């Protein structure tokens, strides 16, 4: 073990050195200064001001080639609450261009006979650790929790994502077209979450959802207090958790104030007021992320099981002036459905996971239906590389429990739990999550009602391109890791 660790360290050191050696000094020269008294003399120091460096790891996603497609004759759940029988969906130029019954098929379109089949928006998993907790589940692939400090808002999940995780492709075969990849829940502030399009990529940037906002993973309850309490550090209690959040938000507000003052003074200076350029505050990556939440550009994704703890988190959001986009897991959300509705906070939960720890002991199958009934933006998520492959079926469990409890919800509405609502909660509803003209053509063709245990995806489209086809081996991606293995590549494995 010691030997292999040394080897890893050595390799890392070499990589670091070579990275340093290849950083071009011209990147400094390339920066154009933006006015000022003495442009010729002003040097630029890129990376010091968060306002000028908000997207240092830009997406390189490019939609795969596509053609005009007409899916004809399907039962369509649009994700807007509508069901269209014997309907048609037209995909053109990577976008959805028309949805409805009796639509004309554009000339030259490839017609897919979808009679007897179902079409839904691409399924969205708003809580995934694919890539950061990749399979095989070995030490080397365990990159989801930077469990070294209760506040690691400075780390970004995308930097742990291994694009070759075989789980991405299994999820794709289950209809998942968009994922939020989150850090784990060991910390009060786990770090930034990233939104990915579920397409095979050589780098994580190849998968990054263009224009999607970042998320901030926060965690309530047992995990942070267990992880740090066991190290003899704060937090070791729930009250310690709350202190930890508040202390960090105070730091973040202070940081924002300093940068605002600096930018104002700099503007004054550039406008000719004052003789000396102001000194910039020191950039802090942790506080950048928290300040992004306070500015509204980063969405809070809060792991929280118990109702009383959710109420505490809401109070903190009021104290510091931010909005919680979604509570994740939310086993007890049904107990405060009215409050969650009023606060416009989404809740992501499971159909039937419960009891795996004390804070999940009051988790009930009726949770989602009770939330839906109260008008809460309800989401079914996975948090699991197996469950993510069966997300509509997990929604079906919640739907059945609701019906048993006398809460009638139709399937056209329930499909929103895994499409439109997660899209809203992660900030991409204007781009995907429903079958509406103008949206990304992220679409799934199902062999049967997606709420059936027997339903299999037949085709999965991302931006209009066929990224998986159960009947076409040339449209069945395989991760590098599984290349040459008997199981996934077996001719019968993909019927």
């Amino acid at each position, binding site marked *: 073990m010691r030997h292999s660790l040394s080897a890893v360290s050595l390799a890392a050191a070499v990589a670091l050195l070579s990275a340093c050696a290849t950083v071009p000094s011209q990147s400094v020269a390339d920066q154009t200064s933006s006015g000022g008294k003495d442009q010729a003399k002003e040097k630029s120091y890129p990376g010091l001001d968060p306002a000028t460096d908000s997207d240092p790891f830009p997406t390189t996603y490019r939609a795969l080639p596509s053609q005009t497609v007409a899916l004809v004759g399907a039962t369509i759940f649009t994700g807007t609450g509508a069901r269209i029988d014997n309907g048609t969906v037209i995909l053109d130029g990577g976008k959805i261009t028309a949805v409805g019954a009796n639509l004309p098929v554009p000339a030259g379109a490839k017609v897919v006979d979808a009679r007897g089949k179902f079409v839904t928006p691409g399924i969205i998993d708003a809580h995934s650790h694919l890539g950061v907790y990749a*399979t*095989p*589940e*070995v030490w080397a692939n365990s990159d989801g929790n930077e469990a070294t400090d209760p506040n690691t808002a400075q780390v970004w999940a995308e930097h742990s994502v291994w694009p070759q995780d*075989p*789980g991405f492709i*299994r999820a794709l075969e289950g209809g998942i077209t968009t994922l939020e990849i989150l850090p784990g829940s060991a910390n009060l502030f786990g770090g930034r979450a990233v939104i990915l399009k579920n397409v095979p990529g050589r780098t994580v940037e190849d998968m990054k959802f263009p224009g999607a906002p970042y998320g901030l993973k926060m965690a309530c309850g*047992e995990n942070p207090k267990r992880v740090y309490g066991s190290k003899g550090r704060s937090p070791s209690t729930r009250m310690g958790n709350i202190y930890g959040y508040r202390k960090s938000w105070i730091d973040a507000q202070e940081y924002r104030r300093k940068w605002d003052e600096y930018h104002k003074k700099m503007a004054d200076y550039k406008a000719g007021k004052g003789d000396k350029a102001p000194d910039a505050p020191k950039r802090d990556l942790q506080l950048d992320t928290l300040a992004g939440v306070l500015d509204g550009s980063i969405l809070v994704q809060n792991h929280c099981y118990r109702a009383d703890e959710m109420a505490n988190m809401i109070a903190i959001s009021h104290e510091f002036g931010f909005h919680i986009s979604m509570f994740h897991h939310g086993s007890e959300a*049904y*107990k405060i*459905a*009215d409050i969650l509705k009023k606060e416009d906070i989404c809740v992501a939960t499971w*159909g*039937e*996971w*419960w*009891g*795996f*720890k*004390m804070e999940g*002991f*009051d988790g*009930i*199958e*009726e949770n989602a239906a*009770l939330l839906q*009934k109260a008008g809460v933006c309800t989401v079914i998520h996975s948090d699991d*590389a*197996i469950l993510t*492959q*069966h997300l509509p*079926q997990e929604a*079906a*469990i919640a*739907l*059945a*429990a609701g*019906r*048993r*409890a006398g809460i009638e919800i139709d399937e056209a509405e329930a499909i929103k739990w895994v499409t439109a609502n997660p899209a809203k909660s992660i900030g991409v509803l204007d781009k995907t999550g429903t079958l509406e003209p103008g949206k990304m053509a992220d679409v799934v063709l199902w062999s049967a009602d997606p*709420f*059936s*245990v*027997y*339903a*299999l995806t037949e085709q999965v489209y991302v931006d209009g391109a066929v990224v998986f086809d159960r009947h076409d081996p040339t449209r069945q991606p395989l991760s590098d*890791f*599984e290349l040459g*293995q*008997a*199981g*996934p590549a*077996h001719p*019968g*494995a993909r*019927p």
Partner: protein
Amino acid sequence: MSVKTSLLALAAAAGLIGAAQAETIAITHAKIVTLGSAGQIDNGTIIVKDGRIAAVGANLAVPAGARTIDAQGHMVTPGVVASNTSLGAGEVEGESSSDDFAGATDQLSAAFDVSLGVNPASMLIPIARMGGVTRAVITPELPGRGDKKGEKLFAGQAAIIDLSGGANSITKRYAALTIDAGTDAAAHLGGTHGGLLQRLEADLEEAASYGANKGGYEHGTHRPYSLSKEDLEALQPILQGKEPLLIEVHRAADIRRVIDLGKRLKLKLILNGVEEGWMVAGDIAASGYPVLLDPQADLPSQFESLNSRMENAGLLAAAGVTIVVIPPYTGHYARQVRYNAGYAVAHGLPWETGIAAITRNPAQIFGFGEKEGRIEPGLDADLVVWSGDPLEMLTVPLHVLIKGEEQPMTSRAQDLARRYGALDPNQPPAYRH
């Protein structure tokens, strides 16, 4: 819920309802999946008397005084069996103080009897029952979950329980001896799969030596043994092939080695896990050993299961292997077992084999097939009337009978849903129960 149902629940919880008071029930207009020689009966009647199935058929008269449950054309199957679960022996997965399934010690490893820790009043039992589960195969797990498993080889003795919640819920003790021969367990016994199998063979040899020389053991004239007397005794029925050894194994090569070991020592094995089983399906079928598997396991989660795939169950069954579909281990998920059977069917397992994999097959393999698992006269009346196809998520049980008693269709989860489903602005929910 009505007062009557609540009282029924109360009485059931208190163990007041026993087979002695069992009423005669006729389930009529049922689509009966017997899993027995009668096959499927489209519009049949089941007569339940004294806790047992008295008659099954298409044109049966309802006995005088019998209560009728009109199935209205819905499907009736034997009660679902959740195999390889901690159900009834643990309340909260993350709180070890609430667990009674991980008890093996140096003194009690093969001999550890999980049945003695089963709590029929577990809050998990009504929740599983609401999902149509009527019996469970409780398997112990090595203690510590991870780094504290120590040197113990066997997790202990499995037990069969019914989900009536009654005092007499134990159907069978010593249903199988459980052992993990996979990576997790090997990590704590030297770190290799091969070393673990060597250790297993050595322990069995020691137990054989003990069995052949019990007198010497009593008089202290035996060679030194590493196992306790309790463990040496517990291994005797395994060596005699009377009790199954339920062995967790995953990799194709390991499955072959375990089969070889079983045949050489004439053991009655049940293979558990078996993600790469489809690659050696012929070997497994030829061995006659049955298989427990989770059909959802399709990821290369460990290096011992790189070739996991959804078609495993279907391919094994097609090769002639007897399949038992299992839920995730922790008792909270016991009710998932029927969906797991559905996923296997979606990927090639015939539908009726899928039903058998959660009813008849586990009952037969774990030695209670003469009591449960089919709808035939003489068997215990563990029956479920379903609102649709039992393997579908949108289907729910309408009636659940265990040993002839109709079970209350409520649980603490339903109580919580009712309590919070309609809030009273003037009273805290704590006053609603």
